[in-house]
């Protein structure tokens, strides 16, 4: 297969070779063409670099160099379109001239900006699709380990939640709502990722292993944010359909910076700063804790029970139990953050280059966490064959190094936090912290090794051949090679003196791709036509190896070597898939006023069986530019455009081999012998093989997941960009999403996938941009505000639409999938209050029975949970549907957005950026756990051992008659009234965050001249400076997982303060 793939580009080269053999044929009729030289300047005579000059209705064009010069070979009657960001576009009729001196006027209009829509770049004015874009400038030099975190609040329709401050971790990113439904509670698979396309290359985002096994690195962490030229998000189907198969969740296009012609320019920039240790959560310490706990016990226990109080409360003179330790202090620290970038670019008319290299180092605020990236990128462009052939290789390499704190044990599938101090595990402050104890706790951070390295190599070769001004063939070859390695080690002391443990993981993924397409652009009278046809082929392969050994002989051995045979484990995996696609796009407009676009793509995937390999994804869109009509020609509107689109896009199942009836080798799994590192593999020493009875049915009839989306929108711009707005309404409905359905138990199989899920996301997006101050004002203020509303709803579930409770959720199953509800809705008991007295407990009027659950009657001081099924009985069992629980609350944010402000005065630039999320519910598990750490068999001891909240500040029930907010402490009542799955712990998740505040100062020209440098900028950034939130309970309303839960064990979001310098030579 690989050979075949390598064969494909060879064929293409042959084709190109055939073309280049015959230069005279290629050159066409040179006598008809003239060479135009020109200079472009501002109205005060400054040359403008990077102005785009293109021949109207063709693909032919160039850009100006640093001195504003350009050269172009065109026909004498050509019309040139001249455009640049922040300048008003112009059209120039050449009329035989060979030299041009043009002046561009500054403008706030964004109409001249270009955006990428799939395989081509067009001006914003002429798009018919819903696209959000930002330029790389907006995210430059912000202290963040990857660009996806920086997209938060800056792009309408894109919801980014930076729920963890873990350096190198990844945020959740969703475009126009979430569609991912899973039968299992899995924090790593809650929100479906959009498709990322970097420089035209769709990034493979398969995850065959979880973060507990692998390095858990953000696969986008290898892209240096300072290398990014622009980010464009294709939100609606008409734009996304060109990426067909994986576009259903939106497409995010990243374009990296390219070289510019002109004398070599060198940029050096760097910043450094600190990440601040967060404010610790309030805990009660020492004598106060003892007094409060004793008071609770005195109140709640009977005289007889009080004879057996835990020693650690009663024995206040015992040095082991008279500490006042704040355990949080052990883990948090202040971190340093450093970044350095070096880039150089330059070139001549026929070739240019840009090389950049970067270093980013962020220390976490939790011990032994951090992230380092070393990156480099080379972008070369050469024009050959008299400018007809563009050769553009891009090579990038990044090495990432992530430190993971206590190194979460790869044997423990539930634990992937770098740190754990959730309410249920924070020890009482009374335990004295002696050096041994500190060593035992911090050993996981200091003594163990957890090294996570990723290497990321990309080689792209982009070839473009211009047959004539209208027709161009483009060929993109790309090869990605990603490897990662994790070495993990735990010392003998940490393994309960059972001998040390070593673990190693390596993987290698390759992704090879070839994309060929032809574009044709022409103008026939007032009709403009642009056609694109092409074909893509992709092959992706992934291999991984893990090995581990336990009960080792020496802490010195930090590799898997020298372990006893019976404690060794090793396994490796191989995954591969192929994707073949054909696509076409036709854009037509009449007088550039009435725009139409059709897109179609068909994808074939190796993941489907023979009869269902191919999926077809069509889309159409139209736009009408009203402002170009005569009746609006001279109005305030410099642009008024209406757009509409309709189309389908698809997504693929994540498993590669669904069409095969897979068998499990080493299928033996026995109770008491199913420990992951050494489970039985055989029966009577013979390898056991059986069909994969869980989900291994051959699924030859599966077909593509498809979603249908419509979008209507309008773009407007007033007074040449003084104000601008974009509004979009959309409805995206997936009806064929794959989901597992239950099979008859008697088949032996549990589940099989079918196309059975429907999810609808509908919403509105609004972006407003303004430059409210007058042009003459010395202060310039650019402001951009965007807000997105998305409503998420499950339309179909399998097995007759039955409600589903996820497997693997915590004990108090607190989420439900239910038709008509948002994905992952909370599933809770309704808290009505606290019983003030025993007389308040309801009594069944027929039987006289008190309100009760399976373990007894409710009493004064207990929470009153609503009896939803009116049987005077609360069902306390948690696995499955519960007649006393109801779906309530939505963990999916409904409103998200941001507000950017850039204020320029003389040489100062002030940036203020807010991001916000509104209408989201959060379940505060931390609060629940703080009160229910003593519900099991050893209630009093557990109560004594774990940290409790400051009860003096809490209106907790103490005696009959109290009108309390909190129920009395649950000391082994088994009434489970402090279950976390109740509305009492639901809290609003709304927040507004002053995400970044930056101030820059550019040295004046005079000084620069003296210094002999081109440009010097000094800047400071305060990241995450302030926040306002609706909830009083939550330390940080964003620091909440994608299921809308806060459990206190996550990584806090730190404040970062950096100071930097940028110099251009």
């Amino acid at each position, binding site marked *: 297969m690989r050979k075949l793939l390598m064969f494909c580009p060879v064929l293409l080269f042959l084709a190109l070779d055939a073309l280049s053999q015959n230069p005279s044929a290629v050159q066409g009729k040179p006598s008809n063409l003239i060479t135009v030289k020109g200079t472009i300047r501002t109205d005060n005579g400054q040359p403008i670099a990077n102005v785009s000059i293109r021949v109207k209705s063709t693909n032919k064009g160039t850009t100006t160099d640093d001195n504003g010069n350009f050269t172009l070979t065109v026909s004498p009657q050509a019309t040139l379109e001249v455009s640049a960001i922040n300048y008003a576009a112009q059209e120039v009729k050449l009329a035989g001239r060979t030299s041009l001196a043009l002046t561009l006027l500054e403008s706030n209009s964004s109409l001249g900006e270009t955006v990428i829509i799939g395989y081509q770049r067009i001006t914003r004015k002429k798009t018919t699709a819903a696209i959000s874009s930002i330029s790389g400038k907006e995210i430059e030099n912000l202290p963040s380990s990857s660009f996806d975190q920086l997209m938060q609040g800056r792009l309408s329709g894109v919801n980014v939640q930076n729920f963890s401050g873990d350096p190198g971790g990844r945020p959740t990113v969703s475009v126009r709502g979430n569609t991912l439904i899973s039968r299992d509670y899995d924090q790593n698979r809650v929100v479906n990722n959009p498709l990322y396309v970097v420089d035209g290359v769709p990034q493979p985002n398969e995850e065959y292993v979880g973060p507990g096994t692998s390095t858990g690195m953000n696969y986008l962490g290898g892209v240096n944010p300072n290398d990014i030229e622009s980010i464009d998000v294709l939100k609606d189907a008409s734009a996304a359909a060109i990426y067909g198969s994986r576009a259903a969740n939106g497409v995010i296009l990243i374009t990296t910076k390219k070289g510019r012609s002109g004398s070599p320019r060198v940029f050096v920039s760097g910043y450094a700063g600190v990440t601040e240790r967060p404010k610790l959560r309030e805990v009660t310490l020492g004598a106060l804790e003892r007094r409060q706990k004793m008071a609770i016990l005195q109140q709640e226990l009977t005289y007889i029970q009080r004879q057996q109080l835990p020693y650690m409360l009663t024995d206040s003179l015992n040095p082991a139990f008279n500490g006042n330790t704040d355990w949080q202090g052990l883990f948090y620290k202040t971190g340093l953050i450093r970044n350095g970038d070096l880039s150089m670019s330059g070139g001549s008319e026929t070739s240019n280059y840009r090389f950049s290299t970067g270093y980013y180092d962020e220390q976490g605020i939790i011990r032994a966490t951090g992230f380092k990236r070393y990156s480099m990128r080379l972008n070369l462009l050469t024009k050959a064959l008299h400018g007809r052939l563009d050769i553009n290789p891009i090579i990038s390499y990044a090495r990432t190094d992530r430190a993971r704190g206590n190194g979460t044990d790869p044997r423990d599938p539930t634990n992937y936090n770098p740190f754990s101090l959730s309410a249920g595990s924070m020890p009482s402050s009374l335990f004295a912290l002696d050096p041994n104890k500190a060593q035992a706790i911090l050993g996981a951070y200091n003594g163990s090794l957890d090294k996570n390295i990723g290497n990321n190599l990309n080689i792209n070769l982009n070839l473009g051949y211009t047959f004539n001004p209208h027709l161009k063939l483009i060929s993109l070859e790309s090869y990605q090679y990603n490897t990662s390695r994790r070495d993990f080690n735990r010392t003998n002391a940490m393994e309960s003196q059972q001998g040390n443990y070593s673990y190693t993981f390596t993987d290698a993924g390759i992704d090879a791709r070839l994309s060929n397409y032809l574009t044709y652009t022409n103008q026939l009278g007032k009709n403009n036509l642009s056609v694109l046809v092409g*074909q893509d082929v992709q092959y992706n392969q992934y291999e991984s190896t893990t090995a581990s050994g336990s009960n080792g002989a020496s802490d010195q051995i930090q590799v898997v070597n020298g372990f006893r045979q019976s404690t060794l484990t090793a396994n490796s995996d191989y995954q591969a898939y192929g994707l073949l696609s054909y696509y076409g796009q036709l854009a037509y407009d009449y007088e550039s006023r009435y725009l139409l676009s059709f897109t179609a793509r068909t994808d074939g995937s190796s993941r489907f069986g023979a009869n269902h390999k191919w999926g077809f994804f069509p889309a159409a869109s139209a736009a009408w530019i009203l402002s170009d009509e005569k009746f609006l020609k001279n109005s305030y509107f410099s642009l008024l455009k209406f757009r509409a689109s309709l189309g389908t896009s698809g997504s693929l199942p994540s498993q590669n081999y669904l069409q095969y009836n897979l*068998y499990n080798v080493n299928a033996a799994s026995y109770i008491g012998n199913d420990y992951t590192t050494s489970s039985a593999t055989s029966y009577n020493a013979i390898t056991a093989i059986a069909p994969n009875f869980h989900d291994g049915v051959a699924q030859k009839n599966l077909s593509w997941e498809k979603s249908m989306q419509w979008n209507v929108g309008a773009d407007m711009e007033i007074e040449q960009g003084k104000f601008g707005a974009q509004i979009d309404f959309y409805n995206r409905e997936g009806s064929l999403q794959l989901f597992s359905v239950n099979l008859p138990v008697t088949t032996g199989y549990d589940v099989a996938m079918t196309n059975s899920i429907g999810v609808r996301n509908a919403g509105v997006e609004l972006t407003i941009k303004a430059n409210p101050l007058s042009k003459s004002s010395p202060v310039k203020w650019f402001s951009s505000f965007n807000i997105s509303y998305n409503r998420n709803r499950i339309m179909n579930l399998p097995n007759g639409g039955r409600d589903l409770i996820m497997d693997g959720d915590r004990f108090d199953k607190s989420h439900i999938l239910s038709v008509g509800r948002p994905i992952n809705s909370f599933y809770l008991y309704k808290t009505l209050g606290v019983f003030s007295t025993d007389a308040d407990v309801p009594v069944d009027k027929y039987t006289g029975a008190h309100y009760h659950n399976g373990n007894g009657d409710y009493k004064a001081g207990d929470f009153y949970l609503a009896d939803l099924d009116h049987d005077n009985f609360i069902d306390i069992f948690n696995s499955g549907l519960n007649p006393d629980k109801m779906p309530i609350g939505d963990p999916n944010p409904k409103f998200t957005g941001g507000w950017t402000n850039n204020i320029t005065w003389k040489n100062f630039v002030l940036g203020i950026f807010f991001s916000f999320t509104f209408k989201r519910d959060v379940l505060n598990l931390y609060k629940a756990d703080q009160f229910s750490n003593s519900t099991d068999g050893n209630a009093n001891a557990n109560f004594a051992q774990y940290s409790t909240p400051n009860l003096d500040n809490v209106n907790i029930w103490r005696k009959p008659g109290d009108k309390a907010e909190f129920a009395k402490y649950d000391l082994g009542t088994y009434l489970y009234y402090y279950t976390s799955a109740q509305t009492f712990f639901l809290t609003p998740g709304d927040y507004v965050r002053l995400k970044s505040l930056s101030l820059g100062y550019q040295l004046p020209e005079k000084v620069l001249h003296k210094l002999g440098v081109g440009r010097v900028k000094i800047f400071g950034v305060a990241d995450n400076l302030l926040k306002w939130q609706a909830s009083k309970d939550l330390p940080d309303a964003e620091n909440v997982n994608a299921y809308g839960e806060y459990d206190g064990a996550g990584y806090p979001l730190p404040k970062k303060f950096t100071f930097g310098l940028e110099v251009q030579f």
Partner: protein
Amino acid sequence: MKKKNILYLATLMVFISATSCKKILEQQPRNSTYLDVFWKSANDCEYAIAGNYALMRDAFTDYAFRYYMYGDAVANTYFTIDYNGDGLEGIQGGDYTFQYNLQSLGNWTKYYKTIAMSNTVLKQVPKITDAQLESSGNVDDPTVYRNKILGEALFIRALTYFEMVKIWGDVPLVIEAYDDPITAPQLPRSPKADVMAQIEKDCLQAAGLLQWGYQDKSNVAVRANKGSVFALLAHLYLWRATTTDLSTPDPIMSDVDKASAAIDSITTMGGYTLVDTADYGKQFIGRSSESIFEIYMSEDSKEGTNKHIGMAFLTDKYVNGFGTGHRFWVPPAYLSNHYYTSPIYDPGTDSSYSDTMDVRFRNNFDMVHDAKPTCRKYANVVYRNPGTRTDPYLSNNMIIFRLSDMLLLKAEIALYKNDINTAVSIINGWRQRNGGSSFFFVDNTWSRDDLMYEYILERGKELYLEGHIFWDLIRTRQYGNFVPWLSDTRFMQGGFYWPVDPYLFRDNRFLVQTSYWKGKV
């Protein structure tokens, strides 16, 4: 025109390159074998049948070793389960409705996985050609080999259904491997008579396919042979004789006769011999001379378990690192009922007698004078980390059928036939053999009922914690003396059968709840 030609050429090239890449859409798994490439050799048969046994072991031992929960724990005078929060002890009071127990012990999913594997073997193995079987070189006679594999699959299916028919009575009956499980039908429960007829049919067919004895020593007792099938048949016939009609204590005599014949085949043809009492205990480690069928669970090949039911009885005296507490314990009343640990005063001889010299008492029980005596029948502990004596596993096979069981059943059969003398001689012979006190011997003046009681005492001593005793009590109607929660009324309503986990009803509208439990779950 030349230019056009080049355009055509380029376009053509692009399309050629595209079509030649079409093969990229075929990717075969390399990380797993799959149906299309499996079932091609004798080795495949070995792996598959090992898979089938493994699934059966999983079905029988899942959730607190459920085989013993059904067969022993619910007869609550034999051992006691202490409270620890999971609610398991609830079943000892005859209440099977506690949610966690219902979800685990009331759920038959794993049994159907075992059956589905047997069905798959029965469907696929006949398709393997003689040449393919011979290709691996260690198969002399392909027909004999194929029959052996098919016979074992039939036995596994029959044994699994037999467990189910004892636990739930009526159960869905599926004897085909579906080509497409996605379109397979939901099935109702079949009457227990049909299920038992199928078990009989499978056994008779398996008996024809399997041989006596073992060619390969490593398979002794842990793989089924003809003896295993007859032992299963004996139990099936006795169960069918006594539970087909719950309203009468009189068994169906034709089935009793068939059971007798099956046991006779084992004793005459099987070549099994009882383990000498001097070596008492070997039979619980496994592969003793009296083993007829057992499930392999040996640490020799890392197949032991640290959740063996035997472990729940053990303390730090037996397992390093265990505490002094043990969740499962033997009620002193059991010991005094069976071994007269509180001596019986006999006015005739003016002496007191106890039966504590019985080899089974001396070997199987410990801490007998404590409040919570324990059972050490399964205590073959192997440490996976021998250096530190940590990570303990039990290496005791799970005994399903052994010769002692068969020989004792002959006494039960004799009693059904009112053959008092045979029953007396078997019971006394058994006591004598094990060193029991002759004071407690029976004689032929005893009534049939009293002898049945004594027979059950003997089963209770011999087969303690082997998953038989509750079923013995049901067959012999002796439950009244040993299972306080099971009244005659409840028995006649089929109240000893288990309810079905409500989870299983979710997608199956044909399924009905076990009749006794309707409205109670």
